[in-house]
Each structure stands twice: as C-alpha cells, then as structure tokens.
C-alpha cells in the first residue's frame, strides 16, 4: 500500500509535491469537478497513510511485548 519510503508505487514526498503542484494549478484553472476529485484523492492518500501508521503502531506494540529486548521493529 503506502510505502513509507519509496517502494513500488507511492512515496510521501512525491505526494506532497504533487499536492502543491495540483493545488496551485487548480487555483489558476478553477475547474470545480477536477478540484473535488483531487480533494477526494488527496484525502484518500492521507487516510491510507494514517491507517498504515495505525497498523504499524499496533503491530509494533504487539511485537515488542512478545520479542526479547534488543530486537527491532
């Protein structure tokens, strides 16, 4: 899904710069339908990131309870 650092499809930095680019373009073009579509898409990206982070935190805590000290997450 959302790769925290590069990986196959999405990266945080790319999305952020894309958002800035799209936002500034929309300010000029003023197309309502495209703007709403992009808003939905950006919201989906953010939700996916937050969901992934949430799962990471849950699994990290579960694993830390089960694994010996000096192990990594």
């Amino acid at each position: 899904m959302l790769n925290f650092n590069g990986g196959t499809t999405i990266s945080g930095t790319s999305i952020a710069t894309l958002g800035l680019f799209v936002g500034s373009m929309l300010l000029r073009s003023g197309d309502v339908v495209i703007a709403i579509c992009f808003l939905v898409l950006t919201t989906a990206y953010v939700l996916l990131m937050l969901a992934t982070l949430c799962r990471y935190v849950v699994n990290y805590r579960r694993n830390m309870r089960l694994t010996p000290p000096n192990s990594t997450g």
Partner: protein
Amino acid sequence: MSRTRRERTKIELKQFVLPRTYPKEDFDYDTAKISALIPTYKPGPLTLRLVEDLVRWDPNVDIYLIDDSTPTTCTESHAYYLRSGTVSSRVTLLRTPKNALKAGALNYGLKHIFAVQKNKLPEVILTLDDDVVITRDTIKNLVIELMSSAELGAVCSQCRVLNKNKNTLTRLQGLEYLGFNATRLADEGFFRGPLVMHGMLTAFRTEALRTVRSFAEGHLIEDYEITARLKSSGWVVKTAVSSEAWTVVPDSFGKLWKQRTRWSYGGVVVINNVRYLPSVMQDLIGHGMFWMTIILLDVLIMSSIFGRGGSLSPEIPYAIIALSVFQLIVWYVFQLWLMRLYKDKDAYDWLLRLALVPEFLYTNVLTVILIGSYLFLFFNAVTRSVTRRSHAFARSAVAFGQALFRACGYTKSWGTRTT
C-alpha cells in the same frame, strides 16, 4: 485444505486500522527438523560463511547448497562450493543438470528433500540467498515465529544492507530497506500479511509449500509470486522482527535499474495473473491510486490548456495543499522516528534522511521504472497477436519495440544468473 482456509479468512474492512491476530501455539525449536535451501550461482566467500554460520549456530538445520550449473571454468567459485560441502556432514551439495535460475534451483532442492526425506519430512524449509549474512539467533527466531501459529505459512526475516557504506546509492537502499521492514510490519494481520516473503531469507512451513507445490519457474520475482499463491491458498504470512539478516545490494545505478525493472515488471505480472485479488490487496490499492492520480493529472493539464476556467472557490485547492503538507509532515516525522530502529546508521545516513531531496529523487526514479513497467505490460498485451504470419511492418514494429524495452532493462525473462 485451501478451500477451508479461504472460507475461514473473511475480508474485514477493520483490518485497515486494526490488524488481525492469530491464536498462538507452543513450539520446541530444539527438537524441530529444519532444512535450508541455498541456491547459488558462482558461490563466493559469503556463501561459505553462510554455510559455516548455519552449521555453527543451528544444529538442527540440514543444509542443501544447490549449485545452479556454475560453469566449471569458474575455479574459485567451484572451490568455495566444494569447501562448503566439507564444513559438516549436514551439508549436502546438489547441482542442477542445467542452469535453471533461482526458482528452478529451489525446486530442484525441494524435489530432493521430498524424495530423500519422504518418511520424515522437515517441519520447516528455509530459502536463503547465497550472499546473506545472519546472526546467532536469526534462524531460531524466524522458525519460532513461523511455528507460533498454525495459520502461518511463511515468515520472512528483516532486511538489512551489508554494503550500506559503499556509496550514496547503497545508503539510500539501506534507508529504503528500513522502510520495507516497517511496511511489512504494518501489513502483519492485514489481508493475510505482507505482499512479499522475500527470497533473501524466508522460512516456509513444509505443509504450506506442499499446498502450493513449488516455485514458479520462469517468473521474474518468484518470491512475490509464491507469496500471492500462499495467501490465495489461505495461508497467512508475516515478518519476524527479531530475525535480522543482511544482504548485498546493487552498488551502481545500472545494476539497481536492472534489479528494479525486474521487480517492478514482475510485480505487475503477478497482479495481472493473480486469481484471488485480496492476496495482493496492498498493490491493488497502490496501483489504483497511482493510476487515478495519473488520469486526474492528465485531465487537469488538459483542462488548464483548453478549459475556459470556472468559479472555483479557493478553499478546495488550499485544502488539497494543506492535506499534502500534512501528509508530508506526518510521513517525515515517522521517517525520523524510524531511524531509531536503524542500528547500522551513521551521521551520513541521518544527513540523507534529513535532507529529503536524495530520497525524493530516488523514489521518483522508481516511479519512472514503474511507468515503464506499465508500458511494457501494455506493449506485450498489444503485440501478443503478432506472429510470424503477420505483416512485415507489424513484425518490424514489434522487434523495434522489444529492442527498445530491452535497452531500457525490461525483459520477460530472469537473466541475472546466466552471465
């Protein structure tokens, strides 16, 4: 078996936030019967070290070193291969009759195990790359994690980069692998687990391997392919956070490009061929979002060129910008937090991470490779109908396209071990 398992595993949307847990079982590692398959081509000092470490630290592991027809003219490699066989009576040397590539060599080893040990099969089969470096507890922790639940079919180790300090590119891959480990942990309990049980070091439950029969030969990324099939058969996979292993990564841009075009196109092919879509859920979402972005971006550019403008209130563009900046901040803070788990880090790694730009450029190169993979898939789908009987122009165009993609590193065959 697979049907029962599939019925038992329901698709639940709450898994997006709250990963599933599986019932735990006790397992006595010391009495476990384990086999390790190490396919090798032109083995070197790291191969010998791996065999020695396995013999020294894991007394219940039988090791099968499978030489994938290294040319006999490679005397140094041949010497390492033979020396590996003298380390212990637990090391068995095998050699494929002809170069079968990684999946073929693994299948050759599997056939041998199933034939020779048919009366008492191992409970766990490990697959390892021949240049992996392990610690005293790597295998033990991996196997204990695998056998901790009857639902688990495979568990992979953590990935670290052995030659991280060689240059900036290897350091960037070290940071990327840190992200891979984090993503795998986040995907534990999410639609049967992470996308890929990597070929570097994975422990398979023998019963699970028998369910999916064997590795797919001729596939570009056999590890992703077998993971998808395991999950399609109802098995769950995960990563073992306490099992650390190091591997050698490409140290030049050309080698990295070649590796990533293989991974990228191989991944697209897996999704294209998969029978049970939830087994590649993460990639489906990732590719879907990517395509939606590309399409919308094209529409936006066309609209700004040819459109007449509209009466958009500025709140929406500002909201898009704000959400993007919010995402960047959360993502960046998490990246910095993740560095505390990166044991191999030094000041230069911190600098790379803090600077953002190198990783930004690196990930955009990967995006270019991904777009190339889509184009290659499209090209192959369109040109499938072109045969020897087709018009000369069509055949020339296909030949030109194939040559162009080959020059860019895109092929349908896995050729890295044939030279």
